């Protein structure tokens, strides 16, 4: 009963607009319409009941008014019951007082009696069957017959009879009790099921009627009406058939109960009752041989018993029908589940016979269903002792057709392969002979496990093969893996706190402790790890050295993000001493080469240097000789001597400056970058080459940035580059006419004032196509005595400063322009 549709409570409570007789009505209008309809139906039923009163007996042959109240209460929520009971009152008064002109006391008692009957029946039914919708179960039918068909009418009738007798409104106590009980019982047992089932049918939505059913119902009703009429209304027409006709309607009643359920049975009994009442009221039929009261009682007993028994039969049949439909649906679901289940499954008998197997099982084993059912498949096809899997009985439980907990086994399939499976068997509930076994193919799982194991082995092997020491940290900085190299290092060579640590140790804490103790490397490493774990940088590196008896050992630590969602870091520590030494050696060689290049350029400028030194020396010597001459007379002019000596000092300083410049260029010191004014370097370089320029008739032209050209560079190396370019420019112009020998040196800010560009332009023939593109390569030269290293070294110097050196032919005139950039001083 619970499964059918929404409850009446919620349906009645529904506050939204609904349609009644095709009209859109609101909740209030709907309530009013229902109330008026209810009251009208009650009034009509009461009027009908009064009209069908037995002649000579104060009993109605068909009192349906109380069935109307009961249906209303069953369809309404209990909180609204008072509304319906109140609505009964005016209808009751109208019929009983105005129409029938009955005394008010009697009317009042009957009102209380009617409402009490309906209340008792509704309350009792709700108490036992809370969600009563249809009477389609045997239990519900029994409760309905006992509560609504017997107890409620009986109790209310006793109350009415007592009141009538006590108020002297009647003297036939038992007639009132029995007669009122039975007439109400008949009306309730027939009408209430019809209305309840009709309500469910109306609210159920699917109101289609099959034609065959309609025809069958029509035939049934017509046949029953004819038979009942013959038996109860006009029995005198065929007196010989009277006994047969009396029982003939029962076949029709059984037909109605078996084919149309409770509602059909109720309608059939109603037709039967109608005919019987009609005959009795007209003084014909089987219930006319006694007093009117006895006739009425007899009729009611006949109808009530017939109705109750038929109702119970119909409910039983309907329940069975429901169960059969439910069972069929359940079987269909099980079949579909079994057939389409991806889990290979078999259904077996305990004697080892396979009753059925689903497609998944057949696919897994390569067997066909018929062979399996007919046992044409040898047991060997499925049995394997080592893996312990068998088709038939097996004392250990390792077989397909016994009950067993989930166990892992191997299944031999048709082509001989062994498939790892997880299988579990159980008997069907309530069955000792049949059961089912499900298998789960573990092949993919095993393969995944194997792949994972292989990956782990490979991972371990890779870690073990790496020479560098590797530590893997989780996001919290705890060591989760180390390689063998690290473990060996920890055991034999580690000297600092951050060089130790095993799996499970908090490495960040160790670094923190070392940093707190003053270890600067640990502090930097801690910073690196924080950066990587915090996502600030994907990787960081640091280098450090430690002393050793054979010289410093260099190490590089790199911290990289661990590429997994949970985060972490990989720290690798490598001994880079050899690489560091090689780098240092290469650096030293570069410096030596640069030095040699400087020496070479100075060699080219040796004449100029000799001139630059000879000039002050000439002055000094001449002044000294003049002073000697001045002092050789008896009254020397001491003031002039003083002036001479001052000149000597000046020239000596000048000579010293030349020597200092030479010394700085010849020195083999380390590179010292500092803030340098590139314009100043240009002036110094030109001073060094001045004599050479004069000797070559080269005129320098300066276009220096008036704002200055401060760069961060090594001044000696800058001078080296400039001297190289100046000498090259002079060489390029050596064959040109002296008037064209202009050397233009310019500086300017470029790259958004982040760098200074210095250009050295000549008016020579320009860069030939045979040399362009190669001129910065080592050992490429156009000079007879050159080694071809100058420009290559210049470029390496500029690139080491983070700048660029390139050459191009002058635009619009002959000559080449060499340009280089250096970053400005911060």
């Amino acid at each position, binding site marked *: 009963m619970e499964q059918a549709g929404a409850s009446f409570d919620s349906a009645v409570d529904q506050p939204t607009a609904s349609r009644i007789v095709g009209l859109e009505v609101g909740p209030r209008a709907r309530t009013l319409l229902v109330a008026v309809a209810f009251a009208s139906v009650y009034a009509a039923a009461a009027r009908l009941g009064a009209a069908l009163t037995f002649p000579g007996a104060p009993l109605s042959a068909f009192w349906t008014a109380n069935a109307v109240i009961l249906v209303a209460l069953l369809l309404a929520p209990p909180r609204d019951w008072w509304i319906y009971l109140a609505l009964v009152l005016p209808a009751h008064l109208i019929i009983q007082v105005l129409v029938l002109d009955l005394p008010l006391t009697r009317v009042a008692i009957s009102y209380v009696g009617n409402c009490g009957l309906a209340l008792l029946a509704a309350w009792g039914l709700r108490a036992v069957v809370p969600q009563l919708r249809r009477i389609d179960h045997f239990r519900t039918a029994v409760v309905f017959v006992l509560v609504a068909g017997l107890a409620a009418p009986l109790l209310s009738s006793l109350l009415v009879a007592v009141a009538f007798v006590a108020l002297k409104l009647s003297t036939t106590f038992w007639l009132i009790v029995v007669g009122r009980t039975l007439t109400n019982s008949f009306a309730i047992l027939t009408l209430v099921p019809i209305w309840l089932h009709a309500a469910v049918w109306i609210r159920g939505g699917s109101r289609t009627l099959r034609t065959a059913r309609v025809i069958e119902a029509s035939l049934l009703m017509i046949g029953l009406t004819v038979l009942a009429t013959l038996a109860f209304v006009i029995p005198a027409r065929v007196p010989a058939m009277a006994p047969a006709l009396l029982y003939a309607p029962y076949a029709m009643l059984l037909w109605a109960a078996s084919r149309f359920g409770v509602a059909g049975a109720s309608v059939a009994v109603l037709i039967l009752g109608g005919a019987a009442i009609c005959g009795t009221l007209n003084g014909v039929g089987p219930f006319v041989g006694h007093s009117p009261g006895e006739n009425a009682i007899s009729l009611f007993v006949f109808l009530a018993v017939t109705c109750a028994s038929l109702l119970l039969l119909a409910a039983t049949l309907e329940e069975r029908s429901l169960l059969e439909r439910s069972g069929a649906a359940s079987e269909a679901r099980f079949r579909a589940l079994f057939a389409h289940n991806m889990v290979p499954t078999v259904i077996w008998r305990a004697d080892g016979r396979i009753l059925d197997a689903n497609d998944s099982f057949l696919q897994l084993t390569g067997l066909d269903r018929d062979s399996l059912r007919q046992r044409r498949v040898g047991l060997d096809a499925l049995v394997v002792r080592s893996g312990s899997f068998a088709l038939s009985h097996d004392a250990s439980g390792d077989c397909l057709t016994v009950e067993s907990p989930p166990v892992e086994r191997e299944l031999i399939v048709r082509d001989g392969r062994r498939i790892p499976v997880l299988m579990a068997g159980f008997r069907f509930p309530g069955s000792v002979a049949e059961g089912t076994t499900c298998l789960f193919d573990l092949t993919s799982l095993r393969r995944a496990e194997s792949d994972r194991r292989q990956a782990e082995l490979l991972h371990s092997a890779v870690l073990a093969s790496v020479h560098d020491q590797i530590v893997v940290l989780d996001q919290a900085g705890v060591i989760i893996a180390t390689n063998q190299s690290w473990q060996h290092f920890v055991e034999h060579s580690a000297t600092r706190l951050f060089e130790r640590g095993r799996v499970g140790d908090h490495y960040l804490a160790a670094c923190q402790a070392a940093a707190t103790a003053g270890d600067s490397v640990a502090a930097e490493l801690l910073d690196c790890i924080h950066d990587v774990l915090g996502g600030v940088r994907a990787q960081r590196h640091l280098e450090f050295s430690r002393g050793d008896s054979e010289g410093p050992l260099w190490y590089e630590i790199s911290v990289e993000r661990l590429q997994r969602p949970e985060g972490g870091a990989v720290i690798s520590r490598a001994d880079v001493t050899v690489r560091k030494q090689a780098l240092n050696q290469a650096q030293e060689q570069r410096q030596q080469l640069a030095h040699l290049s400087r020496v070479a350029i100075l060699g080219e400028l040796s*004449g100029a240097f*000799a*001139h*630059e030194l*000879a*000039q*002050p*020396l*000439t*002055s*000094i*010597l*001449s*002044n000294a*000789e*003049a*002073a000697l*001459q*001045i002092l050789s007379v008896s009254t020397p002019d001491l003031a*002039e001597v003083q002036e*001479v000596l001052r*000149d000597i000092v*000046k*020239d000596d300083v*000048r000579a010293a400056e030349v020597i200092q410049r030479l010394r700085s260029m010849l020195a083999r010191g380390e590179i010292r970058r500092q803030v340098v004014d590139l314009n100043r370097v240009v002036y110094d370089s030109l001073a060094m080459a001045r*004599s050479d320029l*004069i*000797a070559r008739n080269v005129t320098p032209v300066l276009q220096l940035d008036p704002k200055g050209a401060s760069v961060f560079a090594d001044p000696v190396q800058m001078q080296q580059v400039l001297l190289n370019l100046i000498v090259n420019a002079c060489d390029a112009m050596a064959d040109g006419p002296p008037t064209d020998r202009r050397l233009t040196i310019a500086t300017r800010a470029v790259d958004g004032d982040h760098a200074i560009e210095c250009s050295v332009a000549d008016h020579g023939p320009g860069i030939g196509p045979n040399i362009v593109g190669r001129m910065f390569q080592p050992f490429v030269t156009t000079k007879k005595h050159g080694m071809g290293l100058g420009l290559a070294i210049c470029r390496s110097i500029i690139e080491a400063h983070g700048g660029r050196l390139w050459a191009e032919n002058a635009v619009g005139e002959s000559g080449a322009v060499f340009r280089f950039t250096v970053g400005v001083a911060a």
Partner: protein
Amino acid sequence: MLAARALIAVVDDEESVRRALGRMLNASNFETLVFGSGQEFLDSLETRRPDCVVLDYQMPGLTGRDIQRHLARAQIKVPIIVVTAHDQPELREQCLADGAVAYLAKPLQRERLVNLIESAIGPRAAAV
């Protein structure tokens, strides 16, 4: 009675050098005129002609050789002593071929220079 002092022209682009040479020759009893460039010297010839020229060979603008050639073209016969801080054998040969009476590499020794000047201008003008 002292003979008139010989007039020596010193041509050198280096101010300190020409001042020191002038000072030394003055102290050696010569009268000196100093010039910072070849053009200055050539311009002065119109007003006064020196007895001897101490000529720096390597100068911006007119070089010592340019001046030698200019004097030869103008047929001005004045003894020239070429001095240079850029001493090269081929330069010596070239200067002497162009008519220089002497070629000296800097720095200059007073005695050597004075002797050369005196031999160039003869006893008439030599210092007493």
